[in-house]
């Protein structure tokens, strides 16, 4: 009994931290409509900054709390700087660019933090005056956590006062409801938005700094917390503070008790909870329907061109690629094999984004599922390579069949969040189910059959399988199936009113894309000889998005070009430096800032016809 009470209390302490961070995220979203991937980075840097300050001044209670406050304020300033430098240019961009752009910041901040504080985990000192624990029904419970528990409702109350009793807060709420109207009221939206970013990021920083006495400060804190904060915000209803509070409480308890019942899959539990909530209550627990406005489509809406001689060009290219082993050495062949595999991976994502307008933020799930499928078949069943390779798209396709059923129920940002959630579920399983997947150590010794063991032979096999699948995908894109997918993207209303079951096509596309990515994953596993959980992680999903973006969304061949450029860049240029995250992050930011201008020509046609329609 008392044990359960203490467990519930520690769930409340988790909830308090979660709420601090996700309240910031939801406030920023409410006003700017941007899901800020970098929010977790402010939490992490807040913790690092807090650690440094507390080490120096944290001997006394005043010094400790002053340090925490200073760290939070510093994060606020950094957040404001990010608004001015980056977000401001992204408000009118499609959500894909917003998510990617802020993810670029995540990468940059990771490297800068490692550079400033070093790669080691840091243990901070305990809060002065709150070091002990008190007995609750004979169970010890840390005093500091009790303070945290109190802090959650306190911050909620203060935020409520801020938004309901101050002029600034009223303006922010007005802007949340109607951005145009707020600027008509004579409010300078730019200043307002900067202020909101200050507040949101300060809250993240506060959450981070408060962790110093509780847990080690690490370079992994950012992704861990931001993904959880996403879940909280989505479950609570995007933009709803009270919803974030409620969701934090629920998820805090879910984690506290989940760890007792299913210690292996606590992470999975949280994401499943989110998926179920979204299906039952599409706008979250306390969110309202109009909370998420339709955002600009991530895709250009000009006719895809078949190109008169594409077929012959593709054949010529294929012949050229097939001849490479005659001249190239092993290293070049390994590299090229990977490029070909990634081209298929990117093309499968392009099917969703380019044709369906479905921005998946978790496409690595299917790549990784394919890779793990092959590896597990080899490891646990002793399957020969052809069987294991055939299993990859099947397993990934089945996974996509289940996840897709949930995901295509929602569009836009919610779709992105749901795909992210399922990718995280897959990642958690690979990471936590040690007995089967080997956890962090991955699965080693996944080698091709002897007939395909040579670098050239495996390259040819990859080329044949990927080339064939790419060709099928391309046919599908120009066949009625691909058109129906585009029809649903262009105008769901019209599509449904001419008999097109949009969701069904999206679901099919999800499965098709998942299987193709799975095949790529299977090939990748044998090319590398091993699989690791990173194959399913967020950065892998982002890699695919970057490849698609680099190549350009408007052509079917784009992702292929993107895969070539990206992989060469990553393996040849970025491997020269230890700071490859920094480089990649900057590339991503540059891409999203420069690319929208590149497609303005395409988008402006769309926009002006839209304006004419409204007129």
């Amino acid at each position: 009994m008392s044990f359960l009470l203490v467990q519930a209390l520690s769930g409340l302490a988790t909830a308090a931290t979660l709420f601090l961070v996700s309240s910031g995220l939801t406030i920023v979203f409410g006003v700017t409509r941007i899901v800020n991937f970098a929010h977790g980075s402010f939490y992490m840097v807040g913790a690092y900054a807090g650690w440094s300050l507390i080490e120096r001044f944290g001997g006394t209670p005043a010094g400790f709390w002053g340090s925490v406050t200073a760290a939070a304020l510093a994060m606020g300033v950094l957040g404001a700087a990010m608004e001015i430098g980056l977000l401001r240019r992204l408000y009118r961009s499609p959500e894909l660019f917003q998510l990617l752009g802020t993810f670029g910041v995540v990468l940059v901040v990771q490297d800068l933090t490692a550079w400033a504080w070093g790669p080691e985990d840091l243990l901070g000192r305990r809060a002065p005056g709150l070091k002990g624990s008190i007995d609750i029904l004979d169970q010890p419970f840390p005093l500091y956590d009790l303070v945290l528990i109190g802090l959650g409702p306190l911050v909620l109350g203060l935020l409520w006062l801020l938004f309901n009793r101050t002029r600034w807060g009223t303006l922010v709420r007005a802007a949340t409801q109607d951005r145009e109207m707020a600027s008509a009221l004579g409010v300078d939206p730019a200043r307002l938005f900067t202020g909101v970013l200050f507040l949101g990021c300060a809250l993240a920083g506060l959450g981070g700094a408060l962790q110093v006495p509780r847990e080690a400060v690490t370079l992994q804190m950012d992704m861990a917390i931001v993904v959880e904060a996403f879940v909280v915000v989505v479950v609570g209803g995007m933009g709803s503070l009270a919803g974030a509070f409620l969701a934090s409480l629920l998820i805090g308890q879910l984690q506290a008790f989940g760890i007792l019942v299913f210690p292996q899959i606590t992470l999975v539990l949280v994401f499943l909870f989110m998926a179920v909530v979204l299906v039952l209550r599409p706008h979250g627990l306390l969110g309202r329907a109009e909370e998420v406005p339709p955002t600009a489509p991530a895709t250009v809406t000009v006719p895809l061109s078949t190109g008169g001689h594409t077929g012959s060009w593709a054949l010529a290219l294929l012949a050229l690629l097939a001849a490479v082993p005659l001249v190239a050495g092993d290293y070049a062949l390994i590299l090229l094999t990977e490029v070909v595999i990634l081209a298929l991976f990117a093309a499968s994502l392009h099917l969703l984004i380019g044709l369906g307008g479905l921005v998946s933020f978790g496409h690595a799930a299917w790549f990784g599922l394919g890779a793990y499928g092959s590896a597990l078949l080899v490891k646990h069943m002793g399957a020969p390579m052809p069987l294991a390779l055939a299993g990859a798209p099947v397993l990934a396709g089945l996974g996509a069949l289940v996840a897709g059923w949930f995901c295509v129920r929602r569009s836009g940002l919610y779709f992105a969040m749901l795909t992210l959630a399922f990718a995280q579920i897959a990642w958690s399983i690979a990471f936590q189910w040690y007995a089967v997947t080997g956890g962090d150590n991955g699965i080693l010794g996944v080698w091709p059959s002897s007939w395909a063991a040579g670098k050239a032979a495996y390259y040819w096999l990859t080329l044949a399988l990927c080339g064939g699948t790419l060709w099928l995908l391309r046919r599908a894109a120009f066949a009625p199936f691909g058109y129906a997918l585009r029809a649903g993207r262009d105008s769901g209303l019209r599509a449904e009113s001419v008999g097109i079951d949009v969701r069904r096509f999206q679901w099919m596309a999800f499965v098709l894309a998942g299987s193709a990515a799975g095949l790529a994953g299977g090939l990748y596993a044998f090319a590398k000889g091993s699989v690791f959980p990173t194959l399913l992680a967020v950065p892998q999903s982002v890699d695919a998005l970057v490849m698609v973006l680099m190549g350009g969304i408007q052509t079917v061949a784009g992702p292929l070009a993107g895969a070539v450029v990206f992989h060469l860049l990553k393996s040849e240029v970025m491997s020269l430096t230890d700071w490859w995250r920094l480089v990649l992050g900057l590339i991503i930011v540059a891409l999203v800032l420069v690319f929208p201008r590149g497609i303005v020509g395409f988008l402006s046609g769309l926009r002006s016809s839209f304006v004419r329609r409204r007129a």
Partner: protein
Amino acid sequence: MSKLPMSKLVVRDLQRSFGGVQAVGGVSFTLRSGDLLALIGPNGAGKSTCFNLLNGQLRPDSGSVRLDGTELVGLPPRRIWALGVGRTFQITATFASMTVAENVQMVLLSRARRLFGLWRPAALQFREPALALLERVGMAAQADRPCGVLAYGDVKRVELAMALASEPTVLLMDEPTAGMAPAERLALMELTAELVRERGLAVLFTEHDMDAVFGHATRVLVLDRGRLIAEGSPDQVRADPRVQSVYLGGEA
């Protein structure tokens, strides 16, 4: 005109509110084959809402819509479409990333249940019939232009061709001539009237242009704040004092 008036679409006591506002409050009428029925009323009267209730895009709070005796309420738009109810939208909705011809081809493919094809290029299928339909609405010359770049009046015509492509027996047209020049307007209404005569189509349309309404409609319904306040031949409706006060009077 010697036609047997057949009740195609029977609408009974259709109601729908948004929040506290009743957009459509108890609308009943009958649409027969060969009818060119105009639904008029001031802005916000509930005309578009009526259309959305008829084609399943919105669910009525109560009431029934029967097509040849089959209840339509509760069916999704694509089912209702498959039963032979085509529509055009007030705010045009076409597939902007496709050419004009491809837009029509999509409807033909959908009708033939060939959308799940993964192999044969869509652009090569049903092109001839699509061009014939475009010829009919005067858009053949622009068949290969992207739909996203067309003038507003032209998009309306593409929408009509798309609606016709499924060979509907009932056609719902929400402001079909908005954004057109007077001459184009006349041509489109004449084309519609011709289709009604030729195919025995049942057409329900809304229009703010009174020449279009009184020049072509076989009957007129007048909607005001969600309720039908008059129904009859164009002449009867024109003479109705209630109509003049709420609607025509406001315009004069």
